């Protein structure tokens, strides 16, 4: 199994969620996060004093999928979240040892 972590623009969340549910994904975890990449942040000015705001708001979407589906899902996410401008975000993929469904005790692919 693979864990896919997507960090992207907040306003892209709905599009990514739609694309993933259409692709058959049944669950995901979303958090509001802040950070910066090459895009860096923006400048705010209050009464002539400039402040550099490095941490910009992003959303993080986490989901776990079967190995066989991973490549297709990553492509789906990329298509939904891409604008072509700096700040589109990143997708991190990692290997997952096991998954346990708390209610039933199922493990592995059956629990995803």
């Amino acid at each position, binding site marked *: 199994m693979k864990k896919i972590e997507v960090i992207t623009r907040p306003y892209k969340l709905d599009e990514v969620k739609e694309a993933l549910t259409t692709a058959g994904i049944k669950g995901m975890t979303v958090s509001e996060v802040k950070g910066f990449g090459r895009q860096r942040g923006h400048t*705010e*000015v*209050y*009464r*002539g*004093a*400039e*402040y550099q*705001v490095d941490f910009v708001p992003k959303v993080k979407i986490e989901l776990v999928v079967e190995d066989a589906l991973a490549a297709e899902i990553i492509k789906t996410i990329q298509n939904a979240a891409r604008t072509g401008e700096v700040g589109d975000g990143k997708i991190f993929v990692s290997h997952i040892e096991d998954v346990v469904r708390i209610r039933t005790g199922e493990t592995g692919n059956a629990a995803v």
Partner: protein
Amino acid sequence: MNAADTGFILICAALVMFMTPGLALFYGGMVRAKNVLGTVMHSMVILGVVSIVWAVIGYTLSFGSDIGGLIGGMDFFGLNGVGVEPKAGVDNLPHLAFMIFQCMFAVITPALITGAFAERIKFTGFLLFTILWVIFVYSPMCHWVWGGGWLAGLGALDFAGGAVVHMSSAASALACAIYLGKRSGYGKQPFMPHNLPLTVLGAAILWFGWFGFNAGSALAANGLAASAFTTTHMAAAAAAIGWMVVEWIHRGKPTTLGFVSGAVAGLVAITPAAGFVTVMPAIVIGLLAGGICYGGVLLKHLFGYDDSLDVVGIHGLGGTWGALATGLFATKTVNELGNNGLFFGNPGQLWIQFISVVATWAFCFVMTMILLKVVDVVTGIRVSSEDENKGLDVSQHSEVGYQL
């Protein structure tokens, strides 16, 4: 007595009262979220405490019979003899109407100072300081200018409080910023306003209330009140635009905070001149006030004091410019009780205005330093660094502004 005048002044008093909660929002929006209630409370508690101090002793020190040009006597102690009959010299109004109108000025002036020490003052120390300040700084200043004191005798013109309200609070604010020192993390962390819509609402209330402040200072529902109302509005409008344009050029974007700060700067600058100048000079005073006060707020970075919400930059420089501009643009065609300024053939007036500026700054700064020292010894004046980090809302009042 005149019923129209009385009704007008009572409504003006109510308008000026509304400025203090307006100021609470103006300042409250500019601090960090953890200090919003502490900052709002500074203004609100003054509305309570100073009103009482004023009734007991402030009014008589300001408007009691003159003692050596310096202070009023005790004739009106506890509002003794202040009733529904007119005050000598203001025969169109019940004495109480005049007193309560003046009370609202005494309330908002120390509230203005709170912008300088926002986010780091101890509540007990602040309360004691405020009470002493009204007695030892505001009341003498008020007496000097409006109560028949030495500045009035000199012929200094201050229609609605350039010296009494704005320079006095700003000079004291400067003393407070220096005495208390910088907020912890100042210059290293960003100190950004947490809710600018609150600040904009507060500024709008100030603008609205200022009509009572300035037009009401005519002390009658007459042409002079109409003139002061108009100059007040036009100066505010011009200054808001002036600040916006200067900031646009300097930093590349017109900001909301800049626009409303400019409006307040214009209101401050026109205050001493409101009842002595015509409308076009008022627009000039406002336009320049926008630029001058924009520069004024940058001074704190240059000199390294932490005037949290720019009381010195806006009320200090705005009030000073307004007082001097009164010496330039005043004309007797607006107000026979005033005088002509430099541009109307009387250069001496500018010199008198200059003396009033220097006297006000020096007296208020020095007296405030002394009061701060006294308060520091009695109650302490600055919160512990732990309380400062927690924020004034929790550390001073055990509540928070937002449960999100």
